[in-house]
């Protein structure tokens, strides 16, 4: 199908973009790479009278290591993130998640800010942001704001962003020593939305006890979900004593609102989710232990 008619705006700065969106009201929408928005427009699942294109806003692009964190401009494409040696070293989980997003033609256009703002429950970048306690920087006519990922994703395709608020960048912590990271997802075809996926981020203390652990499932419900209860129970324990299958079963027991879909019934998706958590846990432990 063809999208409905709209007026097009392409401001040159982030300030102009938010001023414009604020003035145009809720009939206006930002468009970045458009790889999630355009299918919705083409199918007329979404209709806007105005699109404010961010393609000319140079300040939204870039990757900068700032001390113990890495800032990524919201308009940076997945391909750029995937090719970055800085990110491979500093935020390995992000590098590993990137090839799983759609197909390479999609990654050439799609942006990290767009993916976070779109907040699909099966999206890889929202799940990475949640797992690493990333911070989302925004700009609105009212000023700037920094939102922790844990407070950002409020439901399927819904976030804490105000109508006139623009994501300008996302900040990820640099991976500390003795850490391990893994993302696992199961799809029917490469590039499809995951039937179930899991991420594990693990940092060990010198005595190989668990100093920090984050376990996230995604693709199972309206948003990616951290297994906070299980994480707390594991923290402080000896990593070698944890059985991956047990960890995975505990994680899935805490995931609510798994829905049946065309991939299969709830029980099947839960089983796939359990397998993904167990695999991710094993790989993260392996990396944290042996480097």
């Amino acid at each position, binding site marked *: 199908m063809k999208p409905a008619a709209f*007026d097009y705006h392409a401001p040159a700065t982030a300030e102009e973009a938010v001023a414009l969106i604020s003035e145009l009201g809720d009939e206006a929408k930002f468009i970045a790479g458009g790889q999630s928005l355009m299918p919705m427009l083409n199918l007329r699942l979404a209709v806007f009278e105005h699109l404010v294109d961010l393609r000319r806003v140079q300040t939204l692009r870039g990757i900068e290591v700032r001390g113990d964190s890495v800032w990524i401009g919201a308009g940076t494409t997945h391909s750029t993130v995937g090719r970055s040696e800085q990110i491979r070293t500093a935020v390995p989980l992000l590098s590993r998640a990137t090839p799983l997003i759609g197909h390479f033609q999609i990654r*050439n*256009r799609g942006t990290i800010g767009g993916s976070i703002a779109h907040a699909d429950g099966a999206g890889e970048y929202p799940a990475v942001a949640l797992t690493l306690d990333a911070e989302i920087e925004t700009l609105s006519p009212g000023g700037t704001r920094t939102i922790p990922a844990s407070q950002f994703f409020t439901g399927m395709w819904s976030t804490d962003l105000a109508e006139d608020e623009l994501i300008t960048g996302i900040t990820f912590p640099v991976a500390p020593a003795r850490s391990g990271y893994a993302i696992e997802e199961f799809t029917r075809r490469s590039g499809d939305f995951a039937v179930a996926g899991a991420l594990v981020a693990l940092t060990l203390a010198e005595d190989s006890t668990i100093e920090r652990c984050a376990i996230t499932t995604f693709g199972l419900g309206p948003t990616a979900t951290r297994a906070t209860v299980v994480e707390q129970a594991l923290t402080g324990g000896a990593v070698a004593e944890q059985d991956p299958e047990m960890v995975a079963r505990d994680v899935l027991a805490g995931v609510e609102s798994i829905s049946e879909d065309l991939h299969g019934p709830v029980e099947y998706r839960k089983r796939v989710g359990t397998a993904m958590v167990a695999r991710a846990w094993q790989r993260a432990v392996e990396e944290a232990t042996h480097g």
Partner: protein
Amino acid sequence: MADVDIEVRINGTSFRRTVPPRLTLADFLRVDCGLTGTHLGCEHGVCGACTVMLDGEAVRACLVFAVQADGSEITTIEGIAEPDGTLSPVQAAFRDHHGLQCGFCTPGFVVTASAFLRDNPSPTDDEIREALSGNICRCTGYQGIIAAVKAAAGTVAADD
């Protein structure tokens, strides 16, 4: 809904047009520029038939608005062969290895494979399959397509 003036270079030729913002790049190429080699299958980014190169990067032309391509350099399937009609290595390999049946998906596959092999001239079999995973062929001709891309890469002799 105001129309917008744009200028793009397509296969080396400059095109100036006035377009409605809702016009996709794919429809712009086909309808406004008469370049009907770019095919539209699904129109929502799933099938890959409309793949073109936008400033050298393979993209889905149904997921870009023509206004967003203003000032860009575009290569479509019509720009893949030499000006005298000599087939590119990818095109020749598709012909030699029967990498097409009805041909509808072929422009997307050829543009995809051309961009992929430019960036990764010696891919593994898995990398080839991964690179082609965003393009759908409904004649189920994938074996021939994969053989063609392998041959074009000059890595492994296609087992035909």
